[in-house]
């Protein structure tokens, strides 16, 4: 309780300091947080109560961004975990594929956005593919690493109890790989946000928070630019907290890794 109080005190003090500094600077380039929050309210959260106060702007830009993020993240995670567990369970497959996988992880994902544009043309598929690509590699490598380092005693016990392959995977391999997988998910989440925004900054993008952001810069509308940045920060914070919450629940049976 004290920690939460302390944390929000720091937050309030930080915002107050920002307000004072921007008021003193009185520069249109750096609007005050009050103005930014006002703009956020006007743009996204002043809609009718029947629509959870979301405006057309929120439905037209924020929700599509989040939908693409969710789709890309889900595809990347499912593919990454499945392939990672498969690769990690075979020493031979791991040795063969590790250098290749390390290379793919080392590629800065935005460099492939032009290729995805050519392959999928502009639109949600290209954006989802970019996000999924950025999510895939950290999850895959961490899942493989986790599946590789299962305690031999646990596997031998499973063999003694004659567990089927499916049971062994569900009861032994997955649980011991989970902490590593979650570490990969945390990395992937911040990468996926970068790709979400970057794929929306592309000329020709039709909607999304990133689209609103870049469109506002062409009008020198600094308040909207700042509002979009703060919104992205809040979304990133909430998603991160959500992931940590899930991690804590799922891994509650063991000490945090």
């Amino acid at each position: 309780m004290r920690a939460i109080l302390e944390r929000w005190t720091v937050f309030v003090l930080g915002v107050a300091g920002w307000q004072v500094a921007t008021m003193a600077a009185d520069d249109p380039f750096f609007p005050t947080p009050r103005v930014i929050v006002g703009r956020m309210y006007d743009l996204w959260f002043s809609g009718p109560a029947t629509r959870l106060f979301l405006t057309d702007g929120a439905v037209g830009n924020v929700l599509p961004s989040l939908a693409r993020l969710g789709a890309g993240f889900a595809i990347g995670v499912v593919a990454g975990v499945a392939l990672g567990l498969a690769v990690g369970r075979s020493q031979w497959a791991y040795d063969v594929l590790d250098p290749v996988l390390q290379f793919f992880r080392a590629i800065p994902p935005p460099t492939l956005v032009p290729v995805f544009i050519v392959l999928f043309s502009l639109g949600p598929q290209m954006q989802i593919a970019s996000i999924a690509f950025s999510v895939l590699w950290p999850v895959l490598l961490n899942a493989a690493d986790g599946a590789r380092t299962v305690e031999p005693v646990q596997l031998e016990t499973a063999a003694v109890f004659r567990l089927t392959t499916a049971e062994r995977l569900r009861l032994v391999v997955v649980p011991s790989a989970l902490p590593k997988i979650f570490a990969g998910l945390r990395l992937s989440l911040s990468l996926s946000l970068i790709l979400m925004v970057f794929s929306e900054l592309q000329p020709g993008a039709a909607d999304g928070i990133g689209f609103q952001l870049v469109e506002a810069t062409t009008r020198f509308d600094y308040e909207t630019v700042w509002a979009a940045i703060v919104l992205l920060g809040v979304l990133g914070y909430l998603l991160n907290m959500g992931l940590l919450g899930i991690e804590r629940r799922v891994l509650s049976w063991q000490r945090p890794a």
Partner: protein
Amino acid sequence: MPGRATVRRLARGAVGVGLVVGVSEALGRAGIVHQDFLPPASTILARAAALAADTDFLADVRATLTAWALGLLIAVGVAVPLGLVLGNIPVVSNAVTTIVEFLRPIPSVALIPLVAMLFGTGLEMKLTVIVYASVWPVLFNTVYGLRDVDPVAKDTLRAFGFGRLAVLWHVAIPATAPFIATGVRMAAAVALILAVTAEMFGGFGDGIGIFIAEAANYPGGTTDTLAATVWAGVLGLLINTALVRGERRAFPWARPR
């Protein structure tokens, strides 16, 4: 003299690289996707090899690496001293982790349009977003590592009459160094992503990202995009490998990862 296990691992890794190149070659030649859209591996690798001797491309690589190195250096130069000072005062240390938690989730790509309006699209813009993205992992790991310092060791030195600075120098810094090194490695990867991304958005001057963005504008440029992406991946891989090796050598007692 490398051991037999190492030789076998390297051989298997080479098989994996060959396998991936072979499969992508076959896919490219099979004509499922138009060759201009997804060229076969041999075309990409031949172009990548040609780029290694291309002075214009080498100037691009130099520009990207310069921005990367400068940005990372500034981030480390800011984050480590700040973390060491702030991490030693418990109340401030909590406040800092709170502020970091709120600022870190903002995807740094979102800052590119704003910073580009402020500084134009040159080195200053690149450095600003690189520093913003790479400060957090280093700062967070420094503060986090300081918390982990053995209190008995600190008290022992204090009991012998050593001052605050001596304790910091002889106990806290050596104990925190492995954590800082891990933070730097994470920051190095993010810094490369941001360097390339900022260049792709900017579009003038030298840089791997600019090369890629320009290649996307002419028909059949996908080969150039992918060849440059291969080099970006190789750079990322070399940087990561060098840092992991460095960590193992400098801190043999702390297992990286």
